[in-house]
């Protein structure tokens, strides 16, 4: 085998320019794919992090049917005391959970004493909320970014509302809401900050303290619209999801319908589709790489066989077994693939390091100066390397087979 490799390597060196060109093409393809994977991967990770850590959390529990009606923020589909206790117990038994935050969501009228508009409100227990969505505080673009997020009597208002209603930090406003029975109640709040809007459900909601909401809505007992959950490690998501789902779905109402519904951030955020799109693009780029390798290696190997028909006839005549001849050509394609991949991988890794060193930034939506920090996993590199080398070998098989099958006399007579 060593000798087969030696001879194949010499044959590659014989057509130096062609070898260089082909391996450069393969290297370029590898670089394109690896850079694409690493850059989009880091972008994806950052965006997912933003979404889960600034708003949604990793998982959410609602009363069954809540999500379908979430646009109306219905109060009659909240979880009651018994249900909340049950969920708390199940969450408490799950070790992978870092924290969870209970929220009441409601719609209200917002008045600055001269104008009135609608507002969607997310009402939270600040200590729970900041633990569950730690990047939330960074979304406060005016006012103080306090660890406590907000106190009772205060409101964080969405950016668009602040602009539209010309409300500033420190101003007093009035919230008016209907409770479940239909009666109306109003309460005064002080604007403590302005929240940056982000895409996704709840991304343009205002925020008040849960106790204020209870007072506004005249809720005496425990009542919760949604429970957002943060895991210690996002990698545990699939496992925790199925575990929680099983536990929650086992709880049924009188009609044997599940009482709760559980969703991952993927179901809750539209960014998930963008992430999927990125994955799809990665797949297409990989397919293009495969095509490039397949075409260039097949092409080179067909030429190699054609140019060496006489030599093939000679070595076949003097007794080289067909499978040895086949091996000579397959190994040649394999080496071409190896050289191209090696060069491509090295260039990619250097480029990734360089991008990190340069600290390139980009803007996404309303967020600017996000630092591009591409990384690539060994798994991705190994997958690409194996794919390219595998395709290189596969591409050489047909020409090599042709060489091995050649009739020595015909080959020797070829000029």
């Amino acid at each position: 085998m060593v000798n087969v490799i030696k001879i194949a390597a010499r044959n590659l060196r014989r057509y130096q320019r062609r070898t260089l060109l082909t391996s450069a093409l393969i290297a370029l393809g590898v670089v394109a794919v690896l850079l694409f994977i690493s850059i989009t991967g880091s972008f994806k990770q950052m965006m997912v992090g933003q979404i889960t850590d600034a708003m949604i959390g990793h998982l959410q529990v609602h009363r069954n049917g809540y999500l379908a009606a979430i646009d109306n923020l219905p109060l009659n589909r909240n979880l009651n005391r018994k249900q909340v206790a049950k969920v708390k117990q199940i969450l408490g038994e799950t070790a992978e959970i870092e924290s969870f935050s209970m929220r009441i969501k409601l719609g209200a009228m917002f008045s600055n004493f001269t104008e009135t508009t609608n507002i969607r409100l997310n009402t939270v227990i600040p200590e729970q909320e900041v633990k569950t969505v730690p990047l939330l505080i960074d979304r406060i673009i005016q006012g103080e970014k306090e660890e406590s997020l907000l106190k009772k009597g205060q409101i964080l208002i969405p950016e668009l509302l602040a602009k539209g209603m010309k409300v500033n930090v420190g101003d007093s406003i009035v919230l008016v809401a209907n409770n479940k029975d239909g009666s109306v109640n109003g309460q005064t709040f002080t604007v403590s900050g302005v929240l940056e809007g982000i895409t996704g459900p709840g991304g343009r909601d205002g925020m008040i303290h849960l106790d204020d909401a209870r007072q506004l809505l005249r809720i005496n007992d425990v009542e919760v619209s949604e429970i957002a959950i943060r895991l210690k490690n996002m990698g545990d998501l699939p496992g925790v999801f199925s575990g929680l789902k099983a536990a929650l779905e086992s709880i049924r109402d009188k009609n044997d319908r599940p009482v709760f519904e559980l969703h991952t951030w993927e179901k809750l955020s539209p960014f998930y589709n963008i992430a999927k799109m990125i994955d799809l693009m990665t797949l297409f780029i990989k397919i293009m790489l495969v095509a490039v390798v397949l075409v260039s290696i097949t092409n080179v190997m067909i030429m190699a066989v054609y140019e060496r028909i006489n030599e093939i006839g000679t070595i076949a005549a003097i007794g080289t077994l067909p499978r040895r001849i086949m091996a000579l050509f397959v190994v040649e394609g394999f080496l071409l693939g190896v050289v191209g991949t090696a060069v491509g991988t090295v260039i990619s890794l250097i480029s990734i390091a360089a991008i990190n060193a340069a600290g390139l930034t980009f803007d996404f939506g309303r967020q600017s100066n996000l630092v591009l920090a591409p990384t690539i996993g060994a798994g991705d590199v190994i997958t690409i390397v194996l794919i390219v080398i595998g395709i290189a070998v596969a591409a050489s098989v047909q020409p090599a087979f042709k060489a091995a099958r050649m009739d020595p006399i015909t080959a020797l007579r070829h000029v």
Partner: protein
Amino acid sequence: MSLVVAKNLEKTYRLGDILVTAIRDVNFTIEPASFVSFVGPSGSGKSTLLNMIGCLDPPTMGSLRVAGRDIVRMDRQQAARFRGEHIGFVFQDFNLIPILTVFENVEYPLLMVQNWPAPARKKRVGELLEAVGMGDQGNKYPRQISGGQKQRVAVARALVTNAGLVLADEPTANLDGETANRIIHLMKKMRDAFNTTFVFSTHDPKIMRDAEIVFTLEDGKLLKRRNDEGGAHG
């Protein structure tokens, strides 16, 4: 025991609808360590016959035994193995492998066909290069040596595996008269040194004089056999 025994040998090629009989009802034997030539005009069937003896082309009819083996019904794999073990080839166009040095060209059959261990290979190749007078040229590439030298290397490659039979189809056709002469004498010397049977084809009268046994072919038929024990140059 004869090295080659051909009985009622026939070879027919099909060219579309017409059948071309290249060899018809040929009978002959070749003894070990003999120095044999097939001669005849162009198209008389010399190459066809040599290819059949060399296990490269199966006969259409008749029987053909080489080194005690019936070679008529061999598959590709068996034929390749048989050639690698028993037959050496010298080609009209030398057919050295351009990416390999002289040494490596001679080494090739030991390495890729017979799987000899390295030390034995080195020794054997050295001996053969010495024997054909190319002992000091081992590191050169084929493009760096003359036609005559290439054919010497080819002779060494044909002999390196200790094959009992070396087949050479017009080995001198691409060489000038003087060089051709030397190659034929080299082959004869090798026959004497290694007791290898040499069978070559030619239509050069000067060359055929050097053969000890000459078979004359015409239109696919074996016309006559001249025995000349001792040879013209004794």
